[in-house]
Protein backbone atom coordinates (compact mmCIF):
# COMPACT_ATOMS: atom_id res chain seq x y z
CA UNK A 1 0.00 0.00 0.00
CA UNK A 2 2.76 2.37 0.93
CA UNK A 3 4.75 1.39 -2.13
CA UNK A 4 1.77 2.16 -4.27
CA UNK A 5 1.48 5.66 -2.83
CA UNK A 6 5.14 6.40 -3.41
CA UNK A 7 4.96 5.00 -6.94
CA UNK A 8 1.98 7.17 -7.80
CA UNK A 9 3.30 10.29 -6.09
CA UNK A 10 6.61 10.06 -7.92
CA UNK A 11 4.91 9.13 -11.17
CA UNK A 12 2.87 12.30 -10.91
CA UNK A 13 5.92 14.29 -9.83
CA UNK A 14 7.92 12.99 -12.78
CA UNK A 15 5.10 13.83 -15.20
CA UNK A 16 4.27 17.28 -13.87
CA UNK A 17 7.81 18.54 -13.29
CA UNK A 18 9.01 17.16 -16.62
CA UNK A 19 6.19 18.54 -18.72
CA UNK A 20 6.75 21.94 -17.10
CA UNK A 21 10.46 22.07 -17.86
CA UNK A 22 10.40 20.04 -21.11
CA UNK A 23 10.77 22.92 -23.56
CA UNK A 24 13.42 24.77 -21.55
CA UNK A 25 15.35 21.58 -21.04
CA UNK A 26 15.22 20.74 -24.73
CA UNK A 27 16.66 24.17 -25.55
CA UNK A 28 19.37 23.72 -22.90
CA UNK A 29 20.48 20.38 -24.27
CA UNK A 30 20.07 21.13 -27.97
CA UNK A 31 21.74 24.53 -27.90
CA UNK A 32 24.22 23.22 -25.34
CA UNK A 33 25.21 20.40 -27.67
CA UNK A 34 26.11 22.97 -30.34
CA UNK A 35 27.74 25.19 -27.71
CA UNK A 36 30.26 22.42 -26.98
CA UNK A 37 31.85 23.53 -30.25
CA UNK A 38 31.56 27.23 -29.41
CA UNK A 39 35.19 28.03 -30.23
CA UNK A 40 35.07 26.09 -33.50
CA UNK A 41 31.89 27.91 -34.54
CA UNK A 42 33.39 31.30 -33.67
CA UNK A 43 36.48 30.58 -35.74
CA UNK A 44 34.37 29.19 -38.58
CA UNK A 45 32.35 32.40 -38.62
CA UNK A 46 35.38 34.67 -38.51
CA UNK A 47 37.32 32.51 -41.05
CA UNK A 48 40.40 32.31 -38.87
CA UNK A 49 42.86 29.60 -37.98
CA UNK A 50 43.63 28.57 -34.45
CA UNK A 51 45.84 31.44 -33.29
CA UNK A 52 49.25 31.00 -31.75
CA UNK A 53 49.51 31.60 -28.03
CA UNK A 54 50.23 35.28 -27.55
CA UNK A 55 52.96 36.71 -25.39
CA UNK A 56 51.54 39.44 -23.21
CA UNK A 57 53.64 42.43 -22.26
CA UNK A 58 52.34 42.92 -18.71
CA UNK A 59 54.14 46.17 -18.03
CA UNK A 60 52.75 47.65 -21.23
CA UNK A 61 49.23 46.48 -20.34
CA UNK A 62 49.47 48.12 -16.94
CA UNK A 63 50.78 51.34 -18.41
CA UNK A 64 47.85 51.40 -20.86
CA UNK A 65 45.48 51.14 -17.89
CA UNK A 66 47.41 53.84 -16.10
CA UNK A 67 47.12 56.15 -19.08
CA UNK A 68 43.39 55.53 -19.16
CA UNK A 69 43.23 57.10 -15.72
CA UNK A 70 42.52 54.01 -13.66
CA UNK A 71 44.13 54.05 -10.24
CA UNK A 72 45.79 50.66 -9.99
CA UNK A 73 47.33 50.89 -6.53
CA UNK A 74 45.90 48.40 -4.10
CA UNK A 75 43.84 46.62 -6.71
CA UNK A 76 43.68 42.94 -7.54
CA UNK A 77 44.20 42.79 -11.26
CA UNK A 78 43.57 39.79 -13.47
CA UNK A 79 45.26 39.69 -16.85
CA UNK A 80 44.65 36.81 -19.20
CA UNK A 81 44.69 35.92 -22.82
CA UNK A 82 41.86 34.57 -24.91
CA UNK A 83 41.81 33.20 -28.43
CA UNK A 84 38.16 32.86 -29.26
CA UNK A 85 38.07 33.49 -32.23
CA UNK A 86 40.86 36.05 -32.46
CA UNK A 87 43.54 36.57 -29.83
CA UNK A 88 42.88 39.25 -27.23
CA UNK A 89 44.09 40.29 -23.80
CA UNK A 90 41.54 40.58 -21.03
CA UNK A 91 41.89 42.67 -17.92
CA UNK A 92 39.54 42.41 -14.98
CA UNK A 93 39.67 44.19 -11.65
CA UNK A 94 36.79 44.31 -9.22
CA UNK A 95 36.48 47.48 -7.18
CA UNK A 96 37.73 46.90 -3.67
CA UNK A 97 35.35 47.53 -0.82
CA UNK A 98 37.77 49.43 1.38
CA UNK A 99 38.78 53.02 0.78
CA UNK A 100 42.42 53.60 0.06
CA UNK A 101 44.26 55.56 2.65
CA UNK A 102 47.61 55.66 0.94
CA UNK A 103 46.31 56.02 -2.56
CA UNK A 104 48.02 58.47 -4.81
CA UNK A 105 44.65 59.43 -6.17
CA UNK A 106 44.59 62.75 -4.40
CA UNK A 107 47.38 64.10 -6.57
CA UNK A 108 45.53 63.20 -9.70
CA UNK A 109 42.71 65.66 -9.43
CA UNK A 110 40.16 65.11 -12.15
CA UNK A 111 40.89 61.42 -12.53
CA UNK A 112 39.75 60.40 -9.04
CA UNK A 113 36.45 59.02 -10.30
CA UNK A 114 38.33 56.06 -11.72
CA UNK A 115 39.89 55.33 -8.37
CA UNK A 116 37.56 52.55 -7.38
CA UNK A 117 35.82 51.55 -10.53
CA UNK A 118 35.32 48.18 -12.13
CA UNK A 119 37.92 47.53 -14.81
CA UNK A 120 36.72 45.02 -17.35
CA UNK A 121 38.17 45.38 -20.79
CA UNK A 122 39.78 43.73 -23.76
CA UNK A 123 42.99 44.80 -25.48
CA UNK A 124 44.41 44.12 -28.88
CA UNK A 125 47.57 42.02 -28.35
CA UNK A 126 49.48 43.72 -31.17
CA UNK A 127 48.72 47.38 -30.71
CA UNK A 128 47.69 47.42 -27.02
CA UNK A 129 44.65 49.53 -27.85
CA UNK A 130 41.46 48.98 -25.89
CA UNK A 131 38.96 47.25 -28.15
CA UNK A 132 36.15 46.85 -25.65
CA UNK A 133 35.85 48.53 -22.27
CA UNK A 134 32.61 46.92 -21.14
CA UNK A 135 33.23 43.24 -20.72
CA UNK A 136 35.91 40.58 -20.86
CA UNK A 137 33.41 38.14 -22.29
CA UNK A 138 33.24 37.76 -26.04
CA UNK A 139 29.98 38.94 -27.56
CA UNK A 140 28.64 39.13 -31.04
CA UNK A 141 29.86 35.79 -32.33
CA UNK A 142 27.78 32.90 -33.50
CA UNK A 143 29.18 30.26 -31.17
CA UNK A 144 28.98 32.60 -28.21
CA UNK A 145 25.38 33.41 -29.07
CA UNK A 146 24.42 29.72 -29.08
CA UNK A 147 26.34 29.28 -25.85
CA UNK A 148 24.44 32.16 -24.25
CA UNK A 149 21.15 30.82 -25.58
CA UNK A 150 21.72 27.51 -23.80
CA UNK A 151 21.45 29.16 -20.40
CA UNK A 152 18.76 31.65 -21.47
CA UNK A 153 21.01 34.72 -21.45
CA UNK A 154 18.65 36.46 -23.95
CA UNK A 155 16.10 36.67 -21.11
CA UNK A 156 17.46 39.72 -19.28
CA UNK A 157 18.71 39.35 -15.69
CA UNK A 158 16.76 36.31 -14.51
CA UNK A 159 17.52 34.02 -17.47
CA UNK A 160 20.56 32.37 -15.97
CA UNK A 161 18.88 31.78 -12.59
CA UNK A 162 15.88 30.37 -14.39
CA UNK A 163 18.13 27.81 -16.05
CA UNK A 164 19.57 26.96 -12.63
CA UNK A 165 16.14 26.30 -11.13
CA UNK A 166 15.34 24.30 -14.24
CA UNK A 167 18.44 22.19 -13.68
CA UNK A 168 17.32 21.46 -10.12
CA UNK A 169 13.87 20.35 -11.28
CA UNK A 170 15.58 18.28 -13.94
CA UNK A 171 17.51 16.62 -11.11
CA UNK A 172 14.26 15.97 -9.22
CA UNK A 173 12.65 14.64 -12.37
CA UNK A 174 15.53 12.21 -13.04
CA UNK A 175 15.40 10.90 -9.46
CA UNK A 176 11.62 10.53 -9.61
CA UNK A 177 11.90 8.74 -12.96
CA UNK A 178 14.49 6.37 -11.54
CA UNK A 179 12.36 5.68 -8.46
CA UNK A 180 9.30 4.69 -10.50
CA UNK A 181 11.28 2.36 -12.75
CA UNK A 182 13.62 1.07 -10.04
CA UNK A 183 12.05 -2.38 -9.61
CA UNK A 184 11.88 -3.20 -13.30
CA UNK A 185 14.97 -1.34 -14.34
CA UNK A 186 16.90 -4.33 -15.71
CA UNK A 187 14.11 -5.95 -17.78
CA UNK A 188 13.08 -2.46 -18.98
CA UNK A 189 16.57 -1.86 -20.25
CA UNK A 190 16.55 -4.99 -22.38
CA UNK A 191 13.03 -4.71 -23.74
CA UNK A 192 13.02 -2.33 -26.64
CA UNK A 193 9.70 -3.10 -28.28
CA UNK A 194 9.06 -1.18 -31.45
CA UNK A 195 6.71 -3.49 -33.28
CA UNK A 196 3.63 -3.25 -31.07
CA UNK A 197 2.27 0.25 -31.05
CA UNK A 198 3.41 3.82 -31.27
CA UNK A 199 2.85 4.31 -27.56
CA UNK A 200 5.01 1.30 -26.83
CA UNK A 201 7.78 2.76 -28.99
CA UNK A 202 7.78 6.04 -27.11
CA UNK A 203 7.59 4.25 -23.79
CA UNK A 204 10.44 1.79 -24.51
CA UNK A 205 12.57 4.50 -26.05
CA UNK A 206 11.96 6.82 -23.14
CA UNK A 207 12.98 4.31 -20.47
CA UNK A 208 15.78 2.44 -22.24
CA UNK A 209 17.50 5.54 -23.58
CA UNK A 210 16.78 7.38 -20.35
CA UNK A 211 18.70 4.72 -18.44
CA UNK A 212 21.61 4.85 -20.89
CA UNK A 213 21.83 8.62 -20.52
CA UNK A 214 21.27 8.64 -16.77
CA UNK A 215 24.86 9.32 -15.57
CA UNK A 216 25.33 11.95 -18.25
CA UNK A 217 22.07 13.67 -17.35
CA UNK A 218 22.74 13.55 -13.60
CA UNK A 219 26.15 15.11 -14.20
CA UNK A 220 24.57 17.87 -16.26
CA UNK A 221 21.80 18.49 -13.72
CA UNK A 222 24.37 19.07 -10.97
CA UNK A 223 27.04 20.94 -12.91
CA UNK A 224 24.38 22.98 -14.71
CA UNK A 225 22.80 23.96 -11.41
CA UNK A 226 26.23 24.91 -10.10
CA UNK A 227 27.17 27.11 -13.04
CA UNK A 228 23.85 28.95 -13.03
CA UNK A 229 23.36 29.19 -9.28
CA UNK A 230 26.99 29.41 -8.12
CA UNK A 231 25.99 32.69 -6.48
CA UNK A 232 24.03 30.81 -3.79
CA UNK A 233 27.18 28.87 -2.91
CA UNK A 234 29.72 31.68 -3.08
CA UNK A 235 27.92 34.47 -1.26
CA UNK A 236 26.92 32.56 1.90
CA UNK A 237 30.25 30.71 2.04
CA UNK A 238 32.35 33.84 1.64
CA UNK A 239 30.26 35.79 4.13
CA UNK A 240 29.87 33.17 6.84
CA UNK A 241 33.12 31.23 6.66
CA UNK A 242 35.49 33.94 5.50
CA UNK A 243 33.90 37.11 6.89
CA UNK A 244 33.17 38.50 3.45
CA UNK A 245 36.66 37.96 2.03
CA UNK A 246 36.43 36.35 -1.40
CA UNK A 247 40.19 35.80 -1.33
CA UNK A 248 39.90 33.37 1.56
CA UNK A 249 37.29 31.32 -0.29
CA UNK A 250 39.51 31.25 -3.38
CA UNK A 251 42.24 29.53 -1.40
CA UNK A 252 40.01 26.48 -1.10
CA UNK A 253 38.48 26.34 -4.56
CA UNK A 254 40.97 28.02 -6.89
CA UNK A 255 44.31 28.31 -5.05
CA UNK A 256 45.95 30.19 -7.89
CA UNK A 257 43.72 33.22 -7.42
CA UNK A 258 43.74 33.52 -3.65
CA UNK A 259 44.71 36.81 -2.06
CA UNK A 260 45.34 38.30 1.35
CA UNK A 261 44.41 41.54 2.97
CA UNK A 262 46.94 44.12 2.02
CA UNK A 263 49.58 45.48 4.33
CA UNK A 264 49.10 49.23 4.30
CA UNK A 265 52.54 50.14 3.17
CA UNK A 266 53.33 51.20 -0.37
CA UNK A 267 55.95 49.37 -2.36
CA UNK A 268 58.94 51.49 -3.31
CA UNK A 269 60.24 49.60 -6.29
CA UNK A 270 58.95 46.37 -7.73
CA UNK A 271 60.35 43.76 -10.04
CA UNK A 272 59.46 43.86 -13.69
CA UNK A 273 56.41 41.61 -14.21
CA UNK A 274 57.62 40.38 -17.58
CA UNK A 275 60.80 39.15 -15.94
CA UNK A 276 58.82 37.36 -13.23
CA UNK A 277 56.69 35.76 -15.94
CA UNK A 278 59.81 34.44 -17.65
CA UNK A 279 61.08 33.13 -14.33
CA UNK A 280 57.76 31.41 -13.69
CA UNK A 281 57.91 29.73 -17.08
CA UNK A 282 61.41 28.43 -16.40
CA UNK A 283 60.55 27.36 -12.88
CA UNK A 284 57.55 25.26 -13.97
CA UNK A 285 59.25 24.10 -17.18
CA UNK A 286 56.43 25.31 -19.39
CA UNK A 287 57.48 25.28 -23.01
CA UNK A 288 54.31 25.50 -24.99
CA UNK A 289 51.38 26.73 -22.94
CA UNK A 290 47.91 27.11 -24.37
CA UNK A 291 46.74 29.84 -22.04
CA UNK A 292 48.23 31.82 -19.22
CA UNK A 293 46.50 33.89 -16.59
CA UNK A 294 48.05 36.31 -14.19
CA UNK A 295 46.56 37.52 -10.95
CA UNK A 296 48.29 40.48 -9.37
CA UNK A 297 47.06 41.14 -5.84
CA UNK A 298 47.46 44.27 -3.74
CA UNK A 299 49.24 46.02 -6.57
CA UNK A 300 52.00 48.40 -5.45
CA UNK A 301 51.62 47.49 -1.79
CA UNK A 302 54.10 45.72 0.40
CA UNK A 303 52.56 42.26 0.10
CA UNK A 304 51.86 42.51 -3.61
CA UNK A 305 51.91 39.11 -5.23
CA UNK A 306 51.72 37.84 -8.75
CA UNK A 307 50.25 34.43 -9.39
CA UNK A 308 50.74 32.76 -12.77
CA UNK A 309 48.44 30.01 -13.97
CA UNK A 310 49.38 27.99 -17.03
CA UNK A 311 47.16 25.64 -18.92
CA UNK A 312 48.97 23.17 -21.07
CA UNK A 313 47.93 20.11 -23.02
CA UNK A 314 49.04 17.13 -20.96
CA UNK A 315 49.17 13.55 -22.10
CA UNK A 316 47.37 10.90 -20.05
CA UNK A 317 45.82 13.33 -17.63
CA UNK A 318 42.86 15.66 -17.57
CA UNK A 319 44.65 17.92 -15.12
CA UNK A 320 46.58 20.35 -17.19
CA UNK A 321 47.16 23.38 -15.03
CA UNK A 322 50.07 24.54 -12.94
CA UNK A 323 50.53 27.71 -10.99
CA UNK A 324 53.21 29.62 -9.15
CA UNK A 325 52.95 32.64 -6.87
CA UNK A 326 55.68 35.26 -6.54
CA UNK A 327 56.31 38.21 -4.27
CA UNK A 328 56.38 41.20 -6.58
CA UNK A 329 58.81 43.08 -4.31
CA UNK A 330 61.78 40.75 -4.72
CA UNK A 331 60.57 38.00 -7.09
CA UNK A 332 60.78 35.26 -4.44
CA UNK A 333 58.52 32.23 -4.69
CA UNK A 334 55.59 32.03 -2.26
CA UNK A 335 53.92 28.90 -3.55
CA UNK A 336 54.50 26.51 -6.42
CA UNK A 337 52.25 23.85 -7.86
CA UNK A 338 53.73 21.89 -10.78
CA UNK A 339 51.69 20.08 -13.43
CA UNK A 340 52.05 16.61 -11.95
CA UNK A 341 50.86 17.49 -8.46
CA UNK A 342 47.10 17.55 -7.99
CA UNK A 343 45.36 18.82 -4.88
CA UNK A 344 41.72 18.24 -4.02
CA UNK A 345 41.06 21.94 -3.44
CA UNK A 346 41.92 22.99 -6.95
CA UNK A 347 40.53 19.95 -8.69
CA UNK A 348 36.85 20.27 -7.74
CA UNK A 349 36.05 23.53 -9.49
CA UNK A 350 38.31 22.51 -12.33
CA UNK A 351 36.62 19.15 -12.78
CA UNK A 352 33.13 20.67 -12.66
CA UNK A 353 34.25 22.87 -15.52
CA UNK A 354 35.91 20.06 -17.44
CA UNK A 355 32.92 17.73 -17.15
CA UNK A 356 30.35 20.34 -18.06
CA UNK A 357 32.22 21.54 -21.13
CA UNK A 358 33.53 18.14 -22.20
CA UNK A 359 36.96 19.72 -22.12
CA UNK A 360 38.95 16.52 -21.92
CA UNK A 361 39.85 14.14 -24.73
CA UNK A 362 39.37 16.61 -27.55
CA UNK A 363 36.95 16.08 -30.43
CA UNK A 364 36.25 12.44 -29.54
CA UNK A 365 34.76 13.26 -26.14
CA UNK A 366 32.92 16.28 -27.49
CA UNK A 367 31.28 14.23 -30.22
CA UNK A 368 30.19 11.63 -27.66
CA UNK A 369 28.83 14.45 -25.51
CA UNK A 370 27.00 15.79 -28.55
CA UNK A 371 25.41 12.40 -29.27
CA UNK A 372 24.44 11.91 -25.62
CA UNK A 373 22.88 15.38 -25.61
CA UNK A 374 20.88 14.47 -28.72
CA UNK A 375 19.82 11.26 -26.98
CA UNK A 376 18.65 13.34 -24.04
CA UNK A 377 16.67 15.53 -26.44
CA UNK A 378 15.01 12.37 -27.75
CA UNK A 379 14.20 11.25 -24.20
CA UNK A 380 12.61 14.66 -23.49
CA UNK A 381 10.59 14.71 -26.69
CA UNK A 382 9.48 11.08 -26.31
CA UNK A 383 8.38 11.91 -22.78
CA UNK A 384 6.18 14.68 -24.14
CA UNK A 385 4.75 12.29 -26.75
CA UNK A 386 4.10 9.73 -24.03
CA UNK A 387 2.26 12.37 -22.04
CA UNK A 388 0.04 13.05 -25.03
CA UNK A 389 -0.52 9.37 -25.89
CA UNK A 390 -1.45 8.56 -22.29
CA UNK A 391 -4.17 11.20 -22.49
CA UNK A 392 -5.41 10.07 -25.87
CA UNK A 393 -8.51 8.25 -24.59
CA UNK A 394 -12.12 8.78 -23.67
CA UNK A 395 -11.34 9.80 -20.13
CA UNK A 396 -9.52 12.91 -21.30
CA UNK A 397 -11.89 13.77 -24.14
CA UNK A 398 -12.66 17.28 -22.90
CA UNK A 399 -9.05 18.33 -22.77
CA UNK A 400 -7.96 16.42 -25.86
CA UNK A 401 -7.88 19.42 -28.16
CA UNK A 402 -6.04 21.53 -25.62
CA UNK A 403 -3.45 18.82 -24.96
CA UNK A 404 -2.85 18.38 -28.67
CA UNK A 405 -2.29 22.12 -29.16
CA UNK A 406 0.12 22.23 -26.23
CA UNK A 407 2.14 19.37 -27.66
CA UNK A 408 2.01 20.97 -31.11
CA UNK A 409 3.53 24.16 -29.72
CA UNK A 410 6.12 22.14 -27.78
CA UNK A 411 7.07 20.24 -30.92
CA UNK A 412 7.15 23.48 -32.88
CA UNK A 413 9.59 25.09 -30.44
CA UNK A 414 11.77 22.00 -30.04
CA UNK A 415 11.87 20.81 -33.64
CA UNK A 416 11.93 24.39 -34.91
CA UNK A 417 15.25 24.93 -33.16
CA UNK A 418 17.08 22.66 -35.63
CA UNK A 419 16.11 24.54 -38.83
CA UNK A 420 16.53 27.83 -36.95
CA UNK A 421 20.14 26.91 -36.18
CA UNK A 422 20.70 25.89 -39.80
CA UNK A 423 19.26 29.24 -40.89
CA UNK A 424 21.43 31.07 -38.36
CA UNK A 425 24.56 29.48 -39.82
CA UNK A 426 23.44 30.32 -43.36
CA UNK A 427 22.54 33.91 -42.54
CA UNK A 428 25.86 34.41 -40.75
CA UNK A 429 27.59 33.66 -44.03
CA UNK A 430 25.16 35.60 -46.27
CA UNK A 431 25.42 38.93 -44.44
CA UNK A 432 28.73 40.65 -45.08
CA UNK A 433 31.08 40.99 -42.12
CA UNK A 434 31.23 44.76 -41.98
CA UNK A 435 27.64 46.02 -42.04
CA UNK A 436 26.31 47.86 -39.06
CA UNK A 437 24.31 45.96 -36.44
CA UNK A 438 25.14 42.76 -38.27
CA UNK A 439 24.88 40.58 -35.23
CA UNK A 440 21.51 41.98 -34.16
CA UNK A 441 20.16 41.32 -37.64
CA UNK A 442 21.25 37.70 -37.82
CA UNK A 443 20.01 36.86 -34.33
CA UNK A 444 16.81 38.73 -35.17
CA UNK A 445 16.34 36.52 -38.25
CA UNK A 446 16.95 33.49 -36.04
CA UNK A 447 14.38 34.47 -33.41
CA UNK A 448 11.76 35.51 -35.98
CA UNK A 449 12.09 32.25 -37.90
CA UNK A 450 11.84 30.28 -34.68
CA UNK A 451 8.73 32.22 -33.62
CA UNK A 452 7.12 31.83 -37.05
CA UNK A 453 7.80 28.11 -37.04
CA UNK A 454 6.20 27.77 -33.61
CA UNK A 455 3.18 29.71 -34.81
CA UNK A 456 2.98 27.51 -37.91
CA UNK A 457 3.15 24.45 -35.63
CA UNK A 458 0.22 25.76 -33.62
CA UNK A 459 -1.82 26.32 -36.77
CA UNK A 460 -0.90 23.02 -38.40
CA UNK A 461 -1.53 20.97 -35.24
CA UNK A 462 -0.22 17.85 -36.97
CA UNK A 463 2.85 16.55 -35.18
CA UNK A 464 4.06 14.46 -38.11
CA UNK A 465 4.05 17.34 -40.58
CA UNK A 466 5.60 19.73 -38.05
CA UNK A 467 8.51 17.37 -37.42
CA UNK A 468 8.91 16.35 -41.06
CA UNK A 469 8.91 19.91 -42.35
CA UNK A 470 11.38 21.01 -39.68
CA UNK A 471 13.73 18.21 -40.72
CA UNK A 472 13.33 18.98 -44.43
CA UNK A 473 14.11 22.69 -43.91
CA UNK A 474 17.03 21.88 -41.63
CA UNK A 475 18.46 19.34 -44.08
CA UNK A 476 18.17 21.75 -47.04
CA UNK A 477 19.70 24.67 -45.17
CA UNK A 478 22.31 22.42 -43.58
CA UNK A 479 23.62 21.27 -46.95
CA UNK A 480 23.85 24.93 -48.00
CA UNK A 481 26.01 25.91 -45.01
CA UNK A 482 29.34 24.61 -46.41
CA UNK A 483 28.51 26.00 -49.86
CA UNK A 484 27.74 29.47 -48.50
CA UNK A 485 30.91 29.34 -46.44
CA UNK A 486 32.85 28.48 -49.57
CA UNK A 487 31.34 31.36 -51.55
CA UNK A 488 31.83 33.87 -48.75
CA UNK A 489 35.34 33.02 -47.61
CA UNK A 490 36.81 30.87 -50.36
CA UNK A 491 37.41 28.17 -47.79
CA UNK A 492 35.84 25.17 -49.50
CA UNK A 493 35.62 22.11 -47.33
CA UNK A 494 37.83 20.07 -49.65
CA UNK A 495 40.72 22.48 -49.36
CA UNK A 496 40.29 24.14 -45.97
CA UNK A 497 41.90 21.29 -44.04
CA UNK A 498 45.04 21.45 -46.17
CA UNK A 499 45.26 25.18 -45.61
CA UNK A 500 45.08 24.62 -41.86
CA UNK A 501 41.57 25.91 -41.25
CA UNK A 502 40.58 22.96 -39.07
CA UNK A 503 37.54 24.60 -37.50
CA UNK A 504 36.13 25.75 -40.79
CA UNK A 505 36.46 22.24 -42.17
CA UNK A 506 34.94 20.67 -39.07
CA UNK A 507 31.83 22.85 -39.01
CA UNK A 508 31.28 22.55 -42.78
CA UNK A 509 31.54 18.79 -42.73
CA UNK A 510 29.30 18.55 -39.66
CA UNK A 511 26.54 20.53 -41.35
CA UNK A 512 26.89 18.57 -44.58
CA UNK A 513 26.57 15.38 -42.52
CA UNK A 514 23.58 16.72 -40.58
CA UNK A 515 21.89 17.49 -43.87
CA UNK A 516 22.65 14.15 -45.49
CA UNK A 517 21.77 12.06 -42.42
CA UNK A 518 18.48 13.91 -42.04
CA UNK A 519 17.65 13.39 -45.72
CA UNK A 520 18.47 9.69 -45.45
CA UNK A 521 16.36 9.40 -42.33
CA UNK A 522 13.44 11.06 -44.09
CA UNK A 523 13.73 8.76 -47.14
CA UNK A 524 14.05 5.66 -44.96
CA UNK A 525 11.00 6.48 -42.85
CA UNK A 526 9.02 7.15 -46.03
CA UNK A 527 10.02 3.76 -47.45
CA UNK A 528 9.24 1.89 -44.27
CA UNK A 529 5.90 3.63 -44.14
CA UNK A 530 5.03 2.31 -47.58
CA UNK A 531 6.11 -1.23 -46.66
CA UNK A 532 4.71 -1.55 -43.20
CA UNK A 533 1.05 -1.22 -42.41
CA UNK A 534 1.75 0.23 -38.99
CA UNK A 535 3.47 3.55 -39.33
CA UNK A 536 6.28 4.09 -36.90
CA UNK A 537 7.64 7.30 -38.24
CA UNK A 538 6.93 10.59 -36.64
Amino acid at each position, binding site marked *: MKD*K*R*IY*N*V*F*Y*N*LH*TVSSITIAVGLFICFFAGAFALFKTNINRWEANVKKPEAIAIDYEKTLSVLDNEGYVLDGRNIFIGSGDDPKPYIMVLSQPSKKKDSLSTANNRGALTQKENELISLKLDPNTYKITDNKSIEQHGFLGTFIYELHYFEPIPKIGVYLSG*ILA*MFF*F*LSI*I*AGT*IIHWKKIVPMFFSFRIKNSIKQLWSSGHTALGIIGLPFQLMY*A*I*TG*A*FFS*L*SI*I*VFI*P*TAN*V*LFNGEQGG*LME*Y*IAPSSKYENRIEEPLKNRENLNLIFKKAKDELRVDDYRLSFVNITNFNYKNARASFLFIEKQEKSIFESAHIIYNVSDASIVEKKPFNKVT*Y*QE*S*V*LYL*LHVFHFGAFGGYFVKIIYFLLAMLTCFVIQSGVMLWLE*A*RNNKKHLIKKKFNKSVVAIYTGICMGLFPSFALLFCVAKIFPQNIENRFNIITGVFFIFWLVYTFYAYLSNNLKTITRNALIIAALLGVFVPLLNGFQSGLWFWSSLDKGYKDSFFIDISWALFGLITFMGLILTKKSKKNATTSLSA
Partner: protein
Amino acid sequence: MPANKKYLTKSNWTRASKIIAVTLIAPVASINFHLALAFFIGFAYVVPTSLFSIFILWGFFMVLVYWIKKVWVSWLILLVIILFSVLYIYYAKS
Protein backbone atom coordinates in the same frame (compact mmCIF):
# COMPACT_ATOMS: atom_id res chain seq x y z
CA MET B 1 -1.28 6.08 -17.99
CA PRO B 2 -1.43 9.06 -15.68
CA ALA B 3 -0.89 8.44 -11.98
CA ASN B 4 -3.77 7.26 -9.82
CA LYS B 5 -5.32 10.37 -8.29
CA LYS B 6 -6.26 8.45 -5.15
CA TYR B 7 -2.72 8.77 -3.80
CA LEU B 8 -2.07 12.38 -4.69
CA THR B 9 -2.44 15.51 -2.63
CA LYS B 10 -5.78 17.13 -3.20
CA SER B 11 -5.46 20.38 -1.36
CA ASN B 12 -3.91 23.24 -3.30
CA TRP B 13 -2.44 24.66 -0.10
CA THR B 14 -0.47 21.48 0.55
CA ARG B 15 0.76 21.47 -3.02
CA ALA B 16 1.85 25.11 -2.80
CA SER B 17 3.62 24.55 0.49
CA LYS B 18 5.48 21.60 -1.01
CA ILE B 19 6.63 23.74 -3.92
CA ILE B 20 7.78 26.49 -1.55
CA ALA B 21 9.61 23.90 0.54
CA VAL B 22 11.51 22.45 -2.43
CA THR B 23 12.39 25.76 -4.09
CA LEU B 24 13.12 28.02 -1.11
CA ILE B 25 13.52 26.09 2.13
CA ALA B 26 15.45 23.10 0.79
CA PRO B 27 18.38 25.15 -0.61
CA VAL B 28 18.58 27.21 2.59
CA ALA B 29 18.70 24.02 4.64
CA SER B 30 21.32 22.53 2.35
CA ILE B 31 23.57 25.61 2.45
CA ASN B 32 23.30 26.01 6.21
CA PHE B 33 24.04 22.36 6.74
CA HIS B 34 27.21 22.66 4.65
CA LEU B 35 28.34 25.79 6.45
CA ALA B 36 27.89 24.10 9.83
CA LEU B 37 29.69 21.02 8.52
CA ALA B 38 32.60 23.20 7.38
CA PHE B 39 32.97 24.52 10.93
CA PHE B 40 32.59 21.03 12.37
CA ILE B 41 35.02 19.09 10.12
CA GLY B 42 37.27 21.82 8.79
CA PHE B 43 37.33 23.91 5.66
CA ALA B 44 39.90 22.01 3.65
CA TYR B 45 37.62 19.37 2.19
CA VAL B 46 34.10 20.59 2.95
CA VAL B 47 34.39 23.93 1.14
CA PRO B 48 35.45 22.54 -2.25
CA THR B 49 33.06 19.60 -1.95
CA SER B 50 30.17 21.91 -1.15
CA LEU B 51 30.38 23.36 -4.67
CA PHE B 52 28.49 20.36 -5.95
CA SER B 53 27.22 18.61 -2.84
CA ILE B 54 25.00 21.59 -1.94
CA PHE B 55 22.98 20.83 -5.05
CA ILE B 56 22.93 17.09 -4.44
CA LEU B 57 21.66 17.62 -0.89
CA TRP B 58 19.10 20.11 -2.21
CA GLY B 59 17.90 17.43 -4.63
CA PHE B 60 17.77 14.91 -1.80
CA PHE B 61 15.63 17.30 0.27
CA MET B 62 13.34 17.75 -2.74
CA VAL B 63 12.80 14.00 -2.92
CA LEU B 64 12.31 13.89 0.84
CA VAL B 65 9.53 16.48 0.75
CA TYR B 66 7.58 14.37 -1.72
CA TRP B 67 8.45 11.05 -0.13
CA ILE B 68 7.04 11.95 3.29
CA LYS B 69 3.27 11.87 3.32
CA LYS B 70 2.58 14.58 5.87
CA VAL B 71 3.80 17.90 4.58
CA TRP B 72 4.36 19.38 8.06
CA VAL B 73 6.80 16.59 8.88
CA SER B 74 9.04 17.51 5.98
CA TRP B 75 8.79 21.21 6.87
CA LEU B 76 9.72 20.32 10.44
CA ILE B 77 12.74 18.29 9.31
CA LEU B 78 14.01 21.13 7.08
CA LEU B 79 13.43 23.79 9.72
CA VAL B 80 15.14 21.71 12.41
CA ILE B 81 18.16 21.26 10.12
CA ILE B 82 18.27 25.02 9.52
CA LEU B 83 17.88 25.79 13.22
CA PHE B 84 20.59 23.41 14.39
CA SER B 85 22.98 24.51 11.65
CA VAL B 86 22.47 28.20 12.42
CA LEU B 87 22.96 27.55 16.13
CA TYR B 88 26.14 25.61 15.46
CA ILE B 89 27.50 28.30 13.12
CA TYR B 90 26.72 30.92 15.76
CA TYR B 91 28.44 28.83 18.42
CA ALA B 92 31.49 28.15 16.25
CA LYS B 93 31.94 31.78 15.30
CA SER B 94 31.69 33.17 18.80
